[in-house]
Each structure stands twice: as C-alpha cells, then as structure tokens.
C-alpha cells in the first residue's frame, strides 16, 4: 500500500482522538462508524454478475463469471469458487508490474478463507453432474483506488456481485450412458445464488488502547495490529485473521471480536436492504456506471 511516513505529531493527534472520552476521528466519525458507501450492481454487461463499490475514495469493481468445468477430485459433488484480485496500477503507481501482487494474494486468500465453508455459500447447488460437470465461479476483484479498508470493501463488493449473479438454467438429458447438458438461453430462465449467509469482512484496527472500524489510510499507518473477521448476518464468524506487526492482548481480542460481530451484523443487514431496494427500483433505474 502507498506508504507515507506520517509525523509523530500527526499520529498523536489521531491517537488522542480515538482515546478521547467522546471519540472523534479526523473526519468526525466515532470509532464504530463506516464512511459513506455507494454501490451499484450489474455494471459490467458480459459477466454473470458484477458490482462496483465506492467506500469514501476506495473504489472496487467485482465481476463474477460462471463457467462450466470439472469438479475437483477432492469434492466431486460441489462446484468451485475462485478469487482473483488485481491491484491496478491506476490505484497507485506502486502497484505497477508485480508491485501489487503481495497485497492481491493477501486479499484473495482472506476472501477465499471466508467463503471456504458450505454454510456461507452453498457450492453443492453449483454441481450439475457429480464428478463430471459443475459451475465454477471466477470472482475477479479489481482495485481501482485505495483509500484504506480494502478488505472490507472487497468483501462487500463480492457479496453484492454474488447477489447480482445469474446462472443459466441447465437441464441434463441422459441418453444411454452419455450425459448431455443443455444450457437455457432464455435470459430470464436463470438461477440465483443464495447469499443470505455470505460473510462480510470487518477489519478492526487497534490504535493505542482502542480499536476502530473502517480505518482511513492515515489511521492504518498508526495501527499496530488488525483483526479481520468474516461475519455473517447470523453473527457467526467464518474466518478470523490477525494481521500486522504488532501483537494483541487476549482481552482486547475478545473485545474486538464482540465489536466486529455487532458491526458485521449491521453491515450485512444494511447491505442486503440496499441491494433489495436497488432491485425493486428495477428497470426504471439507469445504470450510472463509472461516471460520478
């Protein structure tokens, strides 16, 4: 990430702001407030599902492409989901060449770990013929601009894109021993994914003795250790990861987890509400796309 060296005094200013009795962050938020988010689904026409998320000036585009493939031998009766994150050099010149690779693999491993259980996304429903044919969901996350809190933003984008995903209906005809697959080409004869229990990542940044959500880039520079949690709408935790070069007291980890769980539930519900609302507005809605 774009690493700017901040001065002691600037860091102290942020630190004290969070430690205050009535916490006031640089932009006036409290410790548990997210910045303004805007989301739009169905922005890329040649994907099975897509979404674009702006979280303050973090900008993320997610595309889902469903393709037919062979299930892996270890789990023959379910489909696959694969994450690929691309850190565009548009976001910061440091990502040029292989510069963004490290961050990209980090985001994609955390995402795939969040979705690596059957409760969060039912991969079995993606199987067509066990051992032979299944849907593989390729999820591409493109990072257009970084303004902090990339993990949360990426996971929200992914969830929205999955909500938007439509997979063509498939009928299997059995002739003798040969299985034949027929893809429906009716654009309305489609299946949707159940994302009601898909997780969103909540990153809690430990700054001084307290923790905040949705840290800005400047706050990330002050933070010693972060706890990333994949939280579902039910409040279960699908993945947990401590990150950063500092260590954490067990007590504060439990505190952070408590906060994360609470915020994660709010985040999931608000996201689902917005997505449903957007869908209701239906065809009247004009795609805004990439222009502001």
């Amino acid at each position, binding site marked *: 990430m774009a690493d*700017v*060296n*901040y*001065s*002691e*005094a*600037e860091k*102290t*200013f942020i630190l*004290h*702001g969070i*430690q*205050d*009795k*009535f916490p*006031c*962050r*640089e*932009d*006036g*938020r*409290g410790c*548990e*407030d*997210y*910045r*303004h*988010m*805007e*989301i*739009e*689904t169905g922005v890329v026409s040649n994907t099975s599902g897509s979404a*674009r998320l702006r979280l*303050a000036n973090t900008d993320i585009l997610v595309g889902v492409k469903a393709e037919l493939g062979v299930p892996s031998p270890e789990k023959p009766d379910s489909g696959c989901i694969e994450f690929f994150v691309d850190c565009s050099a548009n976001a910061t010149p440091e990502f040029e060449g292989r510069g963004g690779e490290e961050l990209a693999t980090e985001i994609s491993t955390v995402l795939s770990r969040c979705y690596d259980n059957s409760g969060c996304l039912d991969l079995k429903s993606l199987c067509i013929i066990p051992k032979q044919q299944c849907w593989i969901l390729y999820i591409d996350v493109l990072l257009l601009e970084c303004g902090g809190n990339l993990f949360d933003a990426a996971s*929200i984008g992914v969830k929205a894109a999955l909500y938007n995903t439509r997979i063509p209906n498939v009928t299997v005809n059995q002739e003798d021993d040969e299985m034949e697959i027929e893809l429906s080409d009716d654009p309305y004869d489609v299946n949707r994914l159940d994302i009601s229990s898909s997780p969103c990542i909540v990153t809690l940044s430990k700054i001084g003795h307290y923790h905040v*959500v949705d840290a800005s880039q400047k706050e990330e520079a002050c933070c010693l250790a972060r706890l990333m949690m994949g939280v579902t709408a039910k409040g279960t935790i699908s993945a947990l990861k401590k990150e950063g070069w500092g260590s954490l007291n067990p007590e504060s980890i439990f505190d952070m987890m408590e*906060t994360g769980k*609470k*915020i994660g539930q*709010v*985040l999931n519900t*608000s*996201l689902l509400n*917005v*997505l449903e*609302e*957007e869908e209701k*507005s239906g065809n009247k*809605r*004009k795609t*805004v796309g990439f222009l502001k």
Partner: protein
Amino acid sequence: MATVDIRFVGARGKKDNIETVEEIQNLVTPGDIITTDTGFMRGHGTFMENEKLHASVAGVVERVNKLICVKPLKTRYNGEIGDVVIGRIIEVCQRRWKVETHSKLNSVLMLSSVNLPGGELRRRSEEDEKLMRHYLKEGDLISAEVQNIMGDGCLSLHTRSLKYGKLGQGTLLSISPSLIKRRKTHFHNLPCGASIILGNNGYVWISPNVNEETDNTGGYEQNLEPVPNDVRIVVARLRNSILALADHHMIIYDTSIMYAYEASLLFTVKDMLKPEVTSEIIDLIQQRMELEGT
C-alpha cells in the same frame, strides 16, 4: 453505536448540473491557436509554431500586459518565489532535507535556510549537521516559503521566520493547487478555535489555535498533550468543510471556509460525509455569497 451508511448509486439525489453552467470564457485545449499576433510574449502553457501562439494545456487563457499564459484546471504545483507551501520531509541528505511539496520535483530545504533552536543568527556547526535528523526527520511536516526556483524547476525553501517551521498536531488535506486563492496572508487564526495554513501547493493544514506570542518557536518544541474534544470537533468540521468546497470546485480562502463552516453547523460533523449534505451546504454558501456579492 455503529452506523453503516450505504446506498445504491441510483438512490443518489439528482445531479446538481441542472442549472446550466455559465460558459467559461477563453477556454482552450492543446493545439488551439490563441493569437496570430506576434506582439505577445509566450508564457506557461503555450508554444509558438509558424509565428502563431498555440495552447499546450487545457485551461483558461490569462493575459498580463504582453504576456499570455494558459492556466490549467488541474495540475501539479508550479512554484513561485514567495509562495507559502506545506511539505513533508522525505529524506535527510547532506546538509539538506528533501521535501515533498506536490510539485514536479522534490523541493529542497537547506540546513542554512532554517532557523535552528536557540537564536536566529547562529552559525551552523558540524554538530548541527549531525543533528539534522533530530530537528526534522522523515515524515515530519513543515510550513515554509519558496526562496528560489532552480534551473530545473526544483524549489528551494526556507523557514527563516518564526511563523514557518515544523508543524505539530493537526490534520493535513491535499487539494488541487489551483483552488487556493493567492492572498496576502495564508495563515489564519479562525474565530471558531482553530488555525489553518493554506499552502499555495494545495496542502491545507488545520490545527488547534496557536498563540502567536508564545507558540511561534519554529515548532521544535512540540506539544503532544491531548487536544480538547471541542477543538477536535472544530478541526474535523473544518476539514470536512474544506473538502466539500474542493469537491464542488469552489475557490478556497478564509471567507469561503468560514461560510462553509457556519453553514455546516446545521449538521453533525459525521453527516458531512454524506453527499447530499455537502451539496446542501454548498447551496447555502452560494446563496450567501450572491447575497453579499462576494
């Protein structure tokens, strides 16, 4: 109490460009012929070809007597002698610091052009050279004045006045340099309880009020005491006000900032992050400016 402010793009309020934007005069794009008259002098953003003066950047044509320039809408900072700038130390070198000032090249602050603690006219000893990182280290912010522009466009800075120097607690914003209005003074102690420095390079520094009598020491002694909560809220509100102004391409100077600040008092600081709130604030400012004719 946690808040998650999320919405879909379609729910965004109507675009504010319904009012027809006034046609801007003298707007040119690269290659446009500005004049065929050979009596003019070629300034920034222009070039001569076949005895005609062409624009080389997109922007507004400006004329000062015989000199014609094109001022681009968005650009890196082009330094001028006497400008107040804010910069961040990025490297400590031999007898100089390299400073990032959002200009084309990194600016230079010589050890000989800073005030050192303990007297303005002290000689720089070898001891001082060794202590350079002690005075200013990587990451520190300074306010300074452009002393000189070198052949390659690199700015040489100085802090030889007590109002310049290392900055303490506060928050830094970066906006387009062309939005900063050039004024007599760029240091303002605002009545609401905070100070701002409007750097010509587009960097704006907001900090708790400084007492000019006692605090102007060049910043070598830093006050790291916690800032009171009310002041902190003022700083955050000012930050959001300035960003709102910059977002709507309004010129930034002390009056416009104060207007924005006063207009924003209707809302909580947190709400100012929402786009509809900012446009409402901007509307209020525009109305007030029209009323007062500024």
